[in-house]
Each structure stands twice: as structure tokens, then as C-alpha cells.
């Protein structure tokens, strides 16, 4: 009993410590098109990011961007620029800013902001007050994008 309680307390502490390091959408420091540090204080997982990129319910980045690294997925959109070599063109901090809130980097872009939880109108109730991706998913996608090099 005591031991179980102790474990739960440790788990709770660990959770709150992790939460404390995650930057809330409203507190993100996006300056001059750059977010310098990880939104979670943790590095992203490129393997997970690759899945988030393709998943229609998550990033669904393939809806608008072609990406040769995901040639096993049959349909790639053409609305935005191709992702091949994206890490040669942008720094990690720039990519983090673009994924987090592209409209603060490219005025009038069609690209959604993936880490804001307000500022959009008439969201469906189940998405109201939520960001499209979590802070860690943004980091995972950024880590994945950093692997897309051609040079």
C-alpha cells in the first residue's frame, strides 16, 4: 500500500516536472522567424516525427507537401513547397517557428499554425482551445525535418 502510494507520488512529480518544462502555446518565444529552444525542453524523435508528418489525423503534412522520403505513401499534395532538402534551406529554430505558427513567418500563408490554441474562429467543439499538435509532436516533426538533407 505504502509502496504503491510512493510510486504514484514519484510518477506525479515526474509528470509535473515534465509539464513545467513544456512551453504553453501562448508563451512561445517566436522572434524574427525563429524559436531557439525546444518547446518541451526535450529533443524530438525523428522516427515519431516521420509518422506524425504522414498521419492524416496528426500533422497530415503530406496533404500539402511532397516528400521523397515518404515515397511509400501514394498521395502527396502540391500546395506547399517540396520537403526534399528542407534542412538545407532552414535552420532547426526556423523550422520550429514555421511548424509552430507559420503565419508569423510567412504572412497570409495557407499553412495552419500547429501549436496555437486560440486565435482561430468557429472551431468544431472537439478542437476548440486545442492545438493541432502537442509540443512534443512539434519537436518530433522538427527533428524529422532536420533529417531531410540533400547536400
Amino acid at each position, binding site marked *: 500500500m505504502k509502496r504503491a502510494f510512493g510510486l504514484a507520488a514519484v510518477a506525479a512529480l515526474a509528470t509535473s516536472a515534465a509539464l513545467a518544462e513544456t512551453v504553453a502555446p501562448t508563451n512561445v518565444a517566436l522572434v524574427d522567424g525563429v524559436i531557439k529552444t525546444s518547446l518541451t525542453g526535450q529533443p524530438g524523435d525523428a522516427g515519431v516525427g516521420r509518422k506524425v508528418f504522414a498521419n*492524416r489525423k496528426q500533422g*497530415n503534412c*503530406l*496533404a*500539402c507537401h*511532397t516528400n*521523397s522520403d515518404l*515515397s511509400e505513401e*501514394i*498521395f*502527396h*499534395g*502540391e*500546395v506547399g513547397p517540396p520537403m526534399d532538402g528542407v534542412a538545407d534551406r532552414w535552420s532547426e529554430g526556423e523550422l520550429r517557428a514555421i511548424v509552430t505558427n507559420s*503565419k508569423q513567418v510567412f504572412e497570409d500563408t*495557407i499553412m*495552419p*499554425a500547429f501549436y496555437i490554441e486560440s*486565435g*482561430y*474562429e*468557429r*472551431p*468544431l*467543439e472537439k*478542437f476548440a482551445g*486545442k492545438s*493541432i499538435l502537442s509540443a512534443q509532436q512539434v519537436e518530433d516533426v522538427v527533428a524529422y525535418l532536420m533529417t531531410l538533407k540533400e547536400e
Partner: protein
Amino acid sequence: MNLKLWITVAASCLSTAALAQDSNKLVIEGEALVTETAAPAHMENVDTIYSGWRFRSSETQALETDDFDNPGFVFLDQGVDLFEKVDGSEGKACASCHEDIEDFAGLRTQLPRVQDGKLASMEDLVNECRTERMGAKPWKWSGGQMTAMTGLIGLQSRGMPVNVEIDGEAAPFWEKGKELYYTRVGQLDMACSNCHENNFGVMIRADHLSQGQINGFPTYRLKNAKLNSIHARFKGCMKNIRAEPFKEGGDEFKALELYLASRGQGLSVETPSVRN
């Protein structure tokens, strides 16, 4: 050639084909339809307007060229039965007053239009007849009976150019529709214009973005195998961008319907069109 290279080659052919609308000509049962014409003067950012037919695959296109192959006609046959059917307290059918369905030729091209100070879509006209003159219950805006009837009435205008009134009494409704067209909504924070004005002709995942023209509604969609109303399509689009849709038959969607119709001035009515 290895498999991966072959896939790349196939994909690049696909993307070349998908760069823009195609140049195919739509001929239905021997009649040539207008699927491309100069944009009306009020459209500032687009030079040429195209029917959604021009963005579909050749297989889907073919279905619309022959009324026997067009799956929408199954529902129009139901519309013919409904037109003849007595319903409501007054003992009347549509056909009691409207002896010849062909008298509706031209109506689709003018709708929505202002009547008694309100913007009226075809669904409003049908339900007004049902409730005021037949003593019958109104049909659901996008239900099967309504789309069968609006499809049948719309067919009478097939081949005629869209020609909605946007000035005078219609102007405030048109302005409201235009504002909605350019307003971003939903968690994805997108306006109609982001896809259908700025990006028509390119692929969004597996879908070839069209100009969002409404000259073929109600449209038979392969996706759900039924006739779809204009407002139901708006609703689907809004849900895709994770926005709370406006009400079918409500002021917002009717205003948007008028504005979109006006972006298709001069295109032939294609009702019932076939889309994916």
C-alpha cells in the same frame, strides 16, 4: 528499371497531369456545355473560370456525358415520382400546378435570388410550395426527397449559363457571401479562397483542387453515392478544416451560395453533375 525509380517516374507523370485543369470538352447527350469562360468582372484575382468537371479524372468525367451512365439519374427518376405524388392537406401534387416540368427551364441559372426581401434558394421555393400551397410538411434541406426534386428541376436548365443577380436588392447578400468566402475559420484557419482561388489545379493529398464552382449541383458524388446539396457540400468543407459549419438553409450559407454562383457566371448548368 527498378521499382522505386518506376514509382518516381509515375508520380512525376501524375503531377504533370495534375498541374492544372485539363482541356477536355464536355458534351452531354450530344450537347456541348461551357466548362470554361472569362471570369466575371467582379472577380479580381482570377482570369478564367472552370467547371469542377475539368478537374476530375477521365473516368469520372465520362460518367457525366451519358445520362444512362450518370448515377444521379436514378435519383431524378425518384424526383419524377415525387413530382406527380399528391401530398398534404390540399390534395395536390407539384404537377397539379406545374403541368410541364420543362417550364422550369432557366430557373436554376437565377438562384439564389431575392424574393420579398429575403434570399431564396431552390430548396426554399420547393418548401414554400409544399407548406403554403400543398399543406404538406417541408422537406429536410439536404434530404433525399429534396435533392431528387432540386436535381429534377435543375436538369431543366442544363446547358444554360449561370446568371444570378448580384446588384440591387441582391447586393447586401452578395457582399456578405463574399466576406464569408475570404474569412478564415476552423482550427486549420482557412478561407474558401485559400484552396479554391489561390490553389486550384494542384493536388491536396489525393484530391485535385477545383475552383469550388457550384454549377453542377445537386451533384452525384462517388464518395457517398447520392445527390449532394450545395449546403451539404459547404458543411463538409467546413468540417474538413475543423470549423463549426453554419446551418444548412441558414443566412450564411445562402449568402455564400449566391456569391459562389456569381463566381460561375457563364458556366453551363450541369445538374446533375458527377464528382468524386
